[in-house]
């Protein structure tokens, strides 16, 4: 019953958005889902994961990290290889998305 109410509330919030905004939100969630295999769904990493969670971290911090990975100025095992696959605009969108998620 509680789940049903939550679903209704979520649906109501969703329907309150104009269609264009809903589409853009869907596309962004899907882009961000590319990070989830290692960092957890919507940035919520599994308990005890040394690969860090992303949800709720400051946007500026996340963006600086992503840009440093892309530039190769921050040592990494594979994040430098993955960050180079995304445009600066996409990295900015991703940083904003994860910053907006609840921890």
């Amino acid at each position, binding site marked *: 019953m509680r*789940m*049903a109410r939550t*679903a*209704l509330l*979520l*649906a*109501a*919030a*969703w*329907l309150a958005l104009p*269609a264009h905004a*809903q*589409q853009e939100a*869907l*596309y962004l*969630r*899907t*882009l961000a*889902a*590319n990070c*989830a*295999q*290692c*960092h*957890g*769904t919507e940035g919520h*990493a*599994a308990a*005890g*994961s*040394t*690969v860090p969670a992303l949800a709720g971290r400051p946007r500026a911090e996340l963006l600086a990290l992503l840009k440093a990975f892309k530039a190769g100025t921050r040592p990494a*095992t*594979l994040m430098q*290889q*993955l960050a*180079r*696959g*995304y445009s600066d605009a*996409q990295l900015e969108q991703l940083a904003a998305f994860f910053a907006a998620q609840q921890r």
Partner: protein
Amino acid sequence: MKRRGFLHAAAAFGLAGCASTASIPAKARVVVVGGGYGGATAAKYVRLLSDHRIDVVVIEPNAAFVSCPLSNLVIGGSRSIGFITTPYGGLARQGVTLVQDTARAIDPQRKTVTLAGGPVIGYDKLVVSPGVELLFDTIEGLRAAHDSGRVLQAWQKAGAETTALRRQLEAMPDGGVYAITIPEQPYRCPPGPYERACQVAWYFRNAKPRSKVLVLDANPDVTSKGALFKRVWSEQYRGILEYRPQHKAVAVDERAGVIKFEVEEDVKADVLNVLPAMRAGAIAVQAGLNNLAGHRWCGVDYLDFQSTAARDIHVLGDAIQSAPAMPKSGHMANAHAKVAAAAIVAELSGWPVNPAPMLTNTCYSFVDDRRVIHVASVHEYVAAERTYKAVGASGGVSPGPSELEGRYALDWARNIWADTLN
């Protein structure tokens, strides 16, 4: 949207009365065939991305998810089968309805799936993520040798056969030979056979040091992480592991323990692990979705993973005709699933599908019980060519094996299992 989907067995599955709103896709039903990395992720993400407005039913015969990635550690003996097993309960908590059965037939015209147990389920959108079928009959004697339990593959599904192969290795006397044969590309999990060879060599080095690993590859060279694997073999497993390219297996004599090859000489071994050529899983073939590469793989529109053979059927994972540089991997199947799930939510909502989807792949291989090497890549949809291409500057491999990547590989496993199943 005209609702044509129906469910003959609603009461049997307790599907009636699900909470839903009055919005356009409120009563839409997505049926998912197969609860692996592709299917389970698709089920979860249709729920997530629709804010739980779309009903999802998963048809999967197994009671729990057993991961193929990391299953080579069970064969090497450093991990148990329990470590790579996750129950399906997390999907139920997402509101996904699980039906423990096998899909026997798909009718794309009526938009129904018939289960082996008898019921017929209607769908608005169908996701088919069937994995691969092994073509035993392409190697003479292999089907009988496999049926008898003498020659195992432990490739199509992790689980009972994984532990059976481990038992064969444990029973093998020191001084014996383990031989693995690899089919020509494309096959499921390109680096998997080489990782498995490392795991068996690691076990032999510690427990049966006079034993040998033979890697008999139909390909002209190691198909993934080649330089890294070869370095590991010469540094860690010299004298234990031998790699032989251009060895295409054509016959197996289970009594004599012999593998015959197209050109090269016969090989005798104590434990034979023969991997034949593969194609899309059986249900995709039944439904006629395997329309490419000599009827081996399923063609899809890469924008939404919709089959090019049937409308409203989306095919994911190893069963599809892969785009260039796109490996058949669990991580990639999970990535396919998210693009397809988003497209399904958009299509059922009457919105345009994301015109620029992206995919990533990260694949870790354990070279012993702790040290790991990776290959990673980012793939973008190129509209003009209607395919994915690896983004030029992206991707790469490890400089060498490390324990740090070993820890990350275990984190990857825990996070992707949760991302797929919880």
